[in-house]
């Protein structure tokens, strides 16, 4: 005797199902079920995960979905039923129905009507009707609904009967028997499964309470009466159900032959012109690209590479994928949108010819066999970054090109994280929300040893230790549960036929966006292809900078015109002068640059990848630096390892190297290495790397590697978990590092102007960028209604940076555009003329006055406001006033602004000032008597006690530095890095967390070019400039 469960919610029926799809699948296999249907509410989101778990098991996975209609058939009640896909066609019909229901409702909801079932073709679906409980409908109403379904589905209709052992069940079963004989429809046993095991009942109760937005105490009869909705052992089923009903479930399962693994990606044929095959078209485009890239003839090595790559592409039948990316990139190029591909396949000779990447295969020695992995049979991975301000144009192009029926974004499954899980379980258990927040603040997430349970008791969330245990267990179980589907940052799925027959499509939160019900892992496990269209701020900045340089040179200047391997550029980077440069501008990178001293493009590839959790946790940074500077010999245990590590001097830096090492040094098979890679990717959410640890370490010891190296490699693998940074991505990023650094070195005005025009992006605020610009001898002029545009501009032959009106916080862009458009040749002569000609509203006028942007006709901010506050609109009669009439009204009672007031007002209006730095004023007033400036520190001996003070522009507690807080202080001469140890931080929490102007007594430390102050005593000086709105970017 066996059984097929046909009614089963996974946790993709959010706040209802209490088990992961894989748990259900594994349990069904364990119990010896013949088949399991995952039937989430109007969704197939859980199917790929269940399928992955059942791939190699005898249990058959059936794809289905549960529905409740909005309206009722005549004389009936709105029916609840399950549809099961019989075959591929039935699966398509199911997806189409789900799409209809989801697309017309708000995100996360669905709405289906009687009429939908009558109009959608569903002949390849089987229907399980779940008759209403006697309390909810009379027999006649139930019968009417049943008759309507019978009319729709005929012999594809069954009545689902469950044994929940709840009050009134006998009555309900009796009625189902009656309905069955009246309708002449068979009954099948169903489990109404909400969890894989009875032990999940507490969690299911918690979810139910949350779904009703209440606590368990208040949930009362919303909760199920017992925990019977689980996957029951066969023996129990046999006791509870008549044998005929159990047999019927097997008969239904027998009729369902659809297998999710049979889904195949069908490429859109649109891209290949008439008369060409995908192969010939890709070859032709590559040849055309070769002629463009290598006007003097393609080097022989590159020719060989291209031949090899094309052969591999055609063997794997990936032509369409490359053509799809090429098409999108070509569109961007035609619109002047800068883009750059990255990923394993992106840095290939073919992609260079197709224009997908600028990484030149002749200039960079990259290993191209990692291009596509033949063994792994996984789709090639190319992410394309576009200018962040113009990516939407690309997205709209994709929708236009393939229509919304055939293109949609992949989903991202938003899951429970510790914070949200604690919050929700706390809410369900009725804990005081303020106390829960207190608990959350007390928990140090990086400190795994923190005993939450004890803290829960300490905080008096409960005094019952058993409840505290429960809380702990529930939170741990809830972690990783899906909460809702969100849109992926840019992963597009494009199909040949209607997408909704491949996977249901639903609405995203963003207007006009649709997402499919699967995320990128699901797509990967089913072998479906996606195209990543990502946004990158630096590309916008580079494009703008290139335009400014072209303007200055009087001829077009593009990325490929930038000379390679420029020594001045590397010299600048070696000094850590990298504010604003892509990827290497963070505090940690600025410290690394003088140590690594990059001299070549490949050094930049390493620079980008080395300051990351993987290499840091594996303690690979110092060995690499020692070897690079010749302080330690470079050696390899054997030739195989040499092949993997040669380009990084024997020290593993990249994720690919670590995986390769697992194979050559620890004897992992290709399959095991692949599992390791997946486990690393999933580590953040629910993965577990410990199973690999023993294998890795014993494998390496067997092969004669030392234990310390093996242990470090394992730690590095853990560090990569969730933050994996492969060489293929680093290679593309390094190119942008070089390009942005070159522009900063040779065209600083254009560089800062473009960066400021691409805000918000990067690490630094406009204020910090402007200060850095001035330190690089760029003249910066204030915003002025008679000179500024909306954007920042470069003025005159000396390329002075004129700040744009966009800097004025709150000013309307349309107002600024009109101001520019209607500006008389001689400039505006008065506030009233400005108001009239540019038709500015009062708000914009006041903001301009606040920015002191009318120096030509107002003596200061205060007087400018006074003039503006006169509300009378000039009438048309006076449209042609003479200049003499523009006599400003001066109010003698108003005070002149002091320098301090002006600085504060500048900050309030623009977040920066071009006048003296507030610290310079305070120093002049004698407030900072014993403090050294950032400039003075440079010539101060290390190891001596110092005092510094500055505006706090950053507080950072990196995950890789145990308990250390880095504080960046800004004064009139530059930045000072302050290091605060955990103990110091604990004792001086208040100034550390709240000060905006901080005074630090400490010891100056120096390692080569790098310098910081080890904090001893912190004091808050904010009262000196309390109203200074300086932007501090806090990272906790």
């Amino acid at each position, binding site marked *: 005797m066996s059984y097929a469960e046909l009614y089963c919610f996974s946790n993709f029926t959010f706040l209802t199902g209490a088990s992961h799809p894989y748990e259900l699948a594994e349990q069904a296999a364990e119990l010896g079920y013949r088949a399991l249907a995952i039937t989430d509410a109007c969704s197939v989101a859980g199917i790929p995960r269940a399928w992955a778990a059942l791939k190699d098991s005898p249990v058959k996975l059936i794809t289905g979905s549960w529905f409740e209609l909005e309206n009722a058939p005549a004389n009936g009640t709105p029916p609840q039923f399950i549809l099961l896909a019989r075959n591929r066609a039935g699966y398509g019909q199911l997806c189409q129905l789900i799409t209809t229901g989801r697309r017309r409702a708000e995100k996360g909801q669905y709405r289906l009507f009687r009429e939908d079932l009558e109009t959608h073709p569903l002949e390849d679906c089987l229907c399980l009707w779940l008759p209403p409980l006697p309390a909810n409908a009379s027999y006649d109403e139930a019968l009417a609904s049943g008759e309507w379904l019978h009319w729709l589905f005929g012999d594809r209709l069954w009545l689902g009967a469950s044994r929940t052992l709840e009050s009134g069940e006998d009555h309900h079963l009796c009625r189902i028997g009656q309905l069955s004989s009246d309708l002449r429809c068979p009954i099948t046993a169903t489990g109404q499964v909400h969890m894989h095991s009875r032990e999940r009942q507490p969690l299911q109760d918690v979810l139910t309470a949350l779904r009703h937005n209440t606590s368990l105490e208040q949930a009362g009869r919303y909760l199920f009466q017992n*925990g019977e909705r689980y996957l029951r052992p066969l023996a129990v089923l046999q006791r509870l159900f008549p044998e005929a009903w159990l047999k019927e479930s097997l008969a239904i399962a027998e009729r369902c032959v659809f297998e999710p693994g049979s889904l195949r990606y069908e490429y859109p044929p649109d891209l290949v012109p008439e008369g060409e095959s995908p192969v010939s078209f890709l070859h032709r485009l590559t040849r055309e690209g070769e002629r463009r890239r290598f006007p003097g003839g393609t080097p022989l090595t590159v020719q060989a590479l291209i031949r090899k790559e094309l052969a591999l592409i055609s063997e794997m039948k990936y032509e369409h994928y490359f053509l799809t990316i090429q098409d999108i990139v070509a569109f961007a190029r035609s619109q002047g949108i800068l883009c750059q591909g990255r990923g394993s396949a992106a840095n290939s000779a073919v992609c260079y010819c197709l224009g997908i990447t600028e990484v030149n295969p002749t200039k960079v020695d990259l290993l191209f066999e990692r291009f596509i992995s033949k063994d792994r049979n996984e789709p090639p991975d190319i992410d394309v970054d576009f200018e962040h301000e113009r990516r939407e144009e690309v997205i709209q192009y994709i929708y236009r090109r393939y229509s919304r029926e055939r293109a949609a974004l992949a989903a991202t499954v938003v899951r429970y994280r510790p914070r949200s899980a604690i919050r929700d379980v706390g809410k369900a258990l009725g804990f005081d*929300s303020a106390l829960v927040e207190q608990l959350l603040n007390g928990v140090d997430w990086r400190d795994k040893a923190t005993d939450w349970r004890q803290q829960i008791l300490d905080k008096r969330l409960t005094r019952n230790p058993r409840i505290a245990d429960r809380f702990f267990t529930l939170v741990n179980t809830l972690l990783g549960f899906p909460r809702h589907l969100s849109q992926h940052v840019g992963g597009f799925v494009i199909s040949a036929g209607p997408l909704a027959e491949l996977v249901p499509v639903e609405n995203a939160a963003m207007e006009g966006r649709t997402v499919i019900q699967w995320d990128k892992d699901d797509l990967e496990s089913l072998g479906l292809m996606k195209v990543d269209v990502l946004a990158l701020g630096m590309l916008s900045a580079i494009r703008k900078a290139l335009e400014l340089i072209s303007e200055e040179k009087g001829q077009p200047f593009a990325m490929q015109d930038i000379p390679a391997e420029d020594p001045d550029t590397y010299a600048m980077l070696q000094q850590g002068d990298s504010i604003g440069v892509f990827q290497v501008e963070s505090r940690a990178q600025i410290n690394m640059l003088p140590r690594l001293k990059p001299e070549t493009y490949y050094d930049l590839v390493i620079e980008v990848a080395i300051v990351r959790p993987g290499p840091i946790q594996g303690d690979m940074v110092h060995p690499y630096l020692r070897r690079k500077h010749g302080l330690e010999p470079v050696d390899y245990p054997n030739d195989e390892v040499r092949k993997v590590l040669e380009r990084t001097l024997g020290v593993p830096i990249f994720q690919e190297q670590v995986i390769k090492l697992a194979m050559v040094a620890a004897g992992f098979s290709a399959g095991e290495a692949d599992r390791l890679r997946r486990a690393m990717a999933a580590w953040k959410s629910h993965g577990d790397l410990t199973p690999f640890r023993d294998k890795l370490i014993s494998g390496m010891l067997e092969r004669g590697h030392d234990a310390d190296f093996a242990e470090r490699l394992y730690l590095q693998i853990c560090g990569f978990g969730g933050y994996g940074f492969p060489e293929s991505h680093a290679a593309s990023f390094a190119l942008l590092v070089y390009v942005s650094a070159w522009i900063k070195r040779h065209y600083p005005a254009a560089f800062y102007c473009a960066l400021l025009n691409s805000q918000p992006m990067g690490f630094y605020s406009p204020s910090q960028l402007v200060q850095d610009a001035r330190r690089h001898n760029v003249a910066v002029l204030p915003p002025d209604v008679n000179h500024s545009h909306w954007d920042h501009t470069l003025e005159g032959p000396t390329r002075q940076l004129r700040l744009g009106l966009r800097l004025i916080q709150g000013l309307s862009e349309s107002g600024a555009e009109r101001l520019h458009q209607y500006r008389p040749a001689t400039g505006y002569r008065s506030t009233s003329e400005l108001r009239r000609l540019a038709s500015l509203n009062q708000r914009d006028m006041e903001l301009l006055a606040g920015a002191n942007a009318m120096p030509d006709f107002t003596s200061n901010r205060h007087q400018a406001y006074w003039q503006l506050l006169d509300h009378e609109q000039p009438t048309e009669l006076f449209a042609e006033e003479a200049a003499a009439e523009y006599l400003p009204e001066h109010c003698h009672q108003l005070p002149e602004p002091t320098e301090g007031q002006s600085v504060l007002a500048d900050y309030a209006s623009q977040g920066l000032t071009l006048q003296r730095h507030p610290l310079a004023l305070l120093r002049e007033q004698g407030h900072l008597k014993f403090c050294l400036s950032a400039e003075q520190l440079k010539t101060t001996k290390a190891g001596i006690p110092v005092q510094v003070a500055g505006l706090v522009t950053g507080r950072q507690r990196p995950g890789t530095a145990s308990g250390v807080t880095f504080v960046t202080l800004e004064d009139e001469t530059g930045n000072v890095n302050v290091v605060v140890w955990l103990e110091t931080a604990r004792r001086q929490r208040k100034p550390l967390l709240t000060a905006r102007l901080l005074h630090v007594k400490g010891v100056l430390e120096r390692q080569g070019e790098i310098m910081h102050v080890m904090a001893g005593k912190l004091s808050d000086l904010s009262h000196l400039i309390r109203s200074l709105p300086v932007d501090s970017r806090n990272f906790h």
Partner: protein
Amino acid sequence: MLWAYLHFPHLLLDHIRRSRNGRDEANEENSKPALVVVDQSAQRVLQACPQAQAQGVQAGMRLKTAINLVPELAIAHADPGREQQILVEQARWLYRHVASIVLHPPDGLLVEVGSLEKLYGGLAAVWQTLEQALSERHLTAWMATGATPLAARLCARAGQGQCTADKVHMERHLHNLPLAAAGFDDRTLTRLQRLGLTQMGEVMTLPPAELARRLAPETLARVQKIQGSRPDPQQPWQPPHHFRQQADFVQDIERAEGLLFPLQRILTELEEDLCWRQQDTDSLLLVLTHRHHEPTRLRIRTSGPEHRAEAFLNLMRLRFEQHPLPAPVASLVLSVRRFLGREAAAGNDLLGETRDLNEAWHTLISRLQARLGNDALQQLSPQPDHRPERAWSASEVQRKPRPAISDLTSLPRRPLWLLNGPQALPEAPVAWYSGPERISGGWWDGQRVHRDYYIAGLSSGQLAWVFRDVRGGWFVHGWFG
């Protein structure tokens, strides 16, 4: 006219702090945890006690930051309705000292003091009386005098307390008042600041016509009200004819003795109030609220008219000895609505005809309660819980009949006679009529049940509601007729 204004910068905080348990206030004050009042969404700190302030917590700070500073912070939630009541409580005692009070919710009282100077023998004496009354009540108030209601209010709120009737003095204070403390709306304040103005005096020197034209007529009106060149009528407060005081606890009070301390303070207030009214009472209502339990309502009757706190407190102590607390207490309210003149013969209407005769229901309930005692009479109602023990509740009889249960059919099948607790069944039932019905739940409050219920016939012929528990034992839980 001379006005004084009392601004309570953290009234709710003071209120909670003085409701706290403990006899020796002064000594224990420092060992008590820092306390803050947060807004209703628990995002921001609204008021911080001195201990919290000493550790860097300030009003307006995000609660998160505050918790980072003081991890063991005690937190109370703001509640405008409650704050208004607390303010009225303050007006009530103040009324004994002064004649004309104006409420400025949520945290201020305006007092006309000009007329009191003579009575008390000078402003300083008035001042001293008020300060002493405040300190007796452990209340913090910032006080200031002013020539106009607004001037007094602004100076008090700015914390620039001064006790003076000197015009020049007051004017100078007003001139030096920071603009941000002048109570202009945000928009007007921003505009004035943008003109470079920082003090009230600078605004007052601007030409009035220009001020009205360039800012708003309302702005001018406000400035003139502050200066006194425009009338600013006030609505005096009338004391209500009942007494009500409340105590709120940060930490639930579990034992009745813990309630006596806050009760004593309130009863002393009551005694003062009664003395001042020259009245007595014979009936007090004490309502105790609990977090997870219906409120407990205790009516305390004295044998005759009474006003001594001591007498009331004794009665309450007796009451608590007889009836232990059903659950920890989160707050208490003591109210008195029935006042008896000291000379009047009490008890005229005690046994007389009530006016409720037309309400037969009420009469019946009252009589039953009078005969059997309040607690003997209860009202049944279904509760949403699957556990039979908790699926119903008995509560004090409600004067207003509850709405009928809408859907009786959705209720589970249960015997009319549910036993007080399950009783072990010596022998297994002999006949089965229905079941099993499995009930499993209640894990969250420690009252977990896991049982299979049946309707079964016993060998004695009785129809019983029985269940079997996890260990396999049989129990009777109810009888069917």
